[in-house]
């Protein structure tokens, strides 16, 4: 086969493959997904009582006041290198010996302890580290536990009532051994408002 003929064959093959694998296959999967798993395929959107979309159960949000300080009536998510901007997922990419990261961790530990009126050694690792995506919707049950009293006070609810809601939005390890127990901050805060 001559080189030019090979290249023409290659171009034809690339185009045919593009039609089959690049258009046909994704469209078929989209069509099946829309019928079989419409909620998941559309992004696991969550709605308030009025039926308005208020986010996705899988994508974290920030719960800050207009001055950038954390709102006491909401459970606070993990720190985020992306500021929970869903259009700019990102981690900090800071290495383990990075001086700036070490300082940030120490600062966050002090801030979280003060904000929740707990001792610094009660602050769990996920409360002081940014996630890989910057959109982590989850916190550890430990981090949720130290926030209960503050949220209850800010909302005038009993701590038991808040604790019951936290429990309702906590997932254990999948099948008992996959992943870690976690609390979904987005659905929990939406339920608190509802």
């Amino acid at each position, binding site marked *: 086969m001559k080189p030019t003929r090979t290249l023409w*064959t290659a171009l034809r*093959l690339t185009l045919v493959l593009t039609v089959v694998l690049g258009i046909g296959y994704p469209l078929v999967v989209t069509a099946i997904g829309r019928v079989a798993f419409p909620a998941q395929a559309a992004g696991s959107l969550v709605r308030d009582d009025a039926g308005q979309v208020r986010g996705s159960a899988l994508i974290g949000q920030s719960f800050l006041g207009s001055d950038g300080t954390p709102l006491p009536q909401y459970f606070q998510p993990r720190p985020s290198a992306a500021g929970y901007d869903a259009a700019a997922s990102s981690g900090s990419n800071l290495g383990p010996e990075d001086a700036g990261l070490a300082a940030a961790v120490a600062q966050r530990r002090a801030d979280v302890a003060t904000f929740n009126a707990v001792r610094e050694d009660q602050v769990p690792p996920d409360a002081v580290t940014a996630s890989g995506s910057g959109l982590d919707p989850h916190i550890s049950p430990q981090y949720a536990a130290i926030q209960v009293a503050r949220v209850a006070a800010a909302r005038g609810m009993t701590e038991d009532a808040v604790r019951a809601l936290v429990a309702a939005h906590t997932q254990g390890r999948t099948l008992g*051994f996959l992943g*870690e127990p976690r609390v979904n901050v*987005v659905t929990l805060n939406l339920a608190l408002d509802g």
Partner: protein
Amino acid sequence: MTATVWAAIGQFGILLVLLAAVHLPLGAYMARVYSSPHHTRVERAWYRTLRVDPDAEQRWSTYLLSLLGFSLASVLLLYALGRLQAHLPWNLGFSGLDPATAWNTAVSFTTNTNWQSYSGEAAAGHLLQMAGLTVQNFVSAAVGMAVAIALVRGLARSGTDARIGNFWSDLTRGALRILLPIAVVGALVLAANGVIQSLDPHTAITTITGETQQALGGPVASQEVIKVLGTNGGGFFNANSAHPFENPNALTNLVEIFLILLIPSALPRTFGLMVGDRRQGWAILGVMTGLWTVATGLLTWAELAGPGLAPSLAGAAMEGKEARFGLAGTALFGAATTGTSTGAVDSMHDSLTAPGGGVAMFTMMLGEVAPGGVGSGLYGMLVLAVLTVFIAGLMVGRTPEYAGKKIGRGEITLVALYVLTVPAAVLLGSAISVVTGPGLAGIQEAGPHGLSEVLYAFTSASNNNGSAFAGLAAGTPYFNTMTGLAMLVGRFVPIALVLALAGRLASQNTVPASAGTLPTHRPLFVGLVGAVTLVVVGLTFIPVLSLGPVVESLS
């Protein structure tokens, strides 16, 4: 912590059980796909459209020429799709990629590297993702498998005038008969668990506190599955498999790890069947499994222990990791993605602990043979097996043979060049980058971690992995060009050498094993191949590793 250790062991165990369950049937299926003389009706029409004769046996040089022609066409088409994005439908309003980024992306996805110097959600519209990137996710994997099968045929055949199969048929069958059916099933499993699959644009919504956030759309599940199945690794979104829409929970995390390892771990069975000696396949699988288990153990230990300044201040190495996967699920993913040529990440590897990051890098430096990329893992490991019989032959004075083929001067020259190509690209690329201005400008961290960032980048690019210590500002024209070159060299030079080797082996007549033949299916040989792999890589990379991750671990 004890519960976490047990969970880590549990998920590792269930993964091995799942892979073992599909090993025999998938290995046998792939052997049938590549050996069957029959074409399906669809394929016959397909070949008529292309005007190729799928039954014409190609010599190795023609096979290589076809492969290079196809890869060139792929690069050109992908480059055009990237540059012209602004004028195409479903572009979400994104403009075209700049020339350096388009070049880097085109090379990256065609070489199965999927190094990404752009951010998916900020630069790539749905059409570029589907018609450009998804397609290359399929075909670059099918190309890797074709090369591996060609080498296996070289070992299996006898006196065939260097004829090693038909590239057009191997590529078509790999993509349509193996990858596509698994991808459809896998995409639906992922979509059922929350991976999005739509053609909707990103739309603004009001959050719980009244802020504005983008609700994302996109054909993600269909791309996600082939990203891992084809050991490609290029994420739909910037955060890759750490992004909740690519990898929503611990179950999808395990599914993705399973899909990453699926074909690479089954190909040794295909090899054993095609050479007519299943024990040879077991031996190769044994080396792969041994190396990968050690790497997984070390990486998991490093991340669970969490040494280093920031991890000890935080209480655990959770920087850059997702709460839903935890440390153990993240470490298992990290070992799977660097042990194959995948490069997908479910955490930010730049934030791994120093020993964890060192293990990830070393696993890639092994040449990604534990168990390696789709196809590339098998041919890489077979090359090392040939090297091992040669070294063993020198030690005991026997004529080196592998699978009934004599390893002579021509063969071992090709093997030696293969072993040297990638390290040369890694070390030269890194060396140039730490002595030139544009290279130094991209480094984020000072000191040994800065060297690790550059070394990881060139290791990843040359080995066609694609994961990154993403602190490195790799989106500059300098790094786009340099890593692009490293990817091309690291992909096509080894492929050319492997196909040349396949041609030479196919021309030889098979010699029956004699009393002087080193058995290549015994544990002794498995241990030897493992040792040769470690020694070759160790001698090449330990000096530079000492200056990067090792110094960092000791500081």
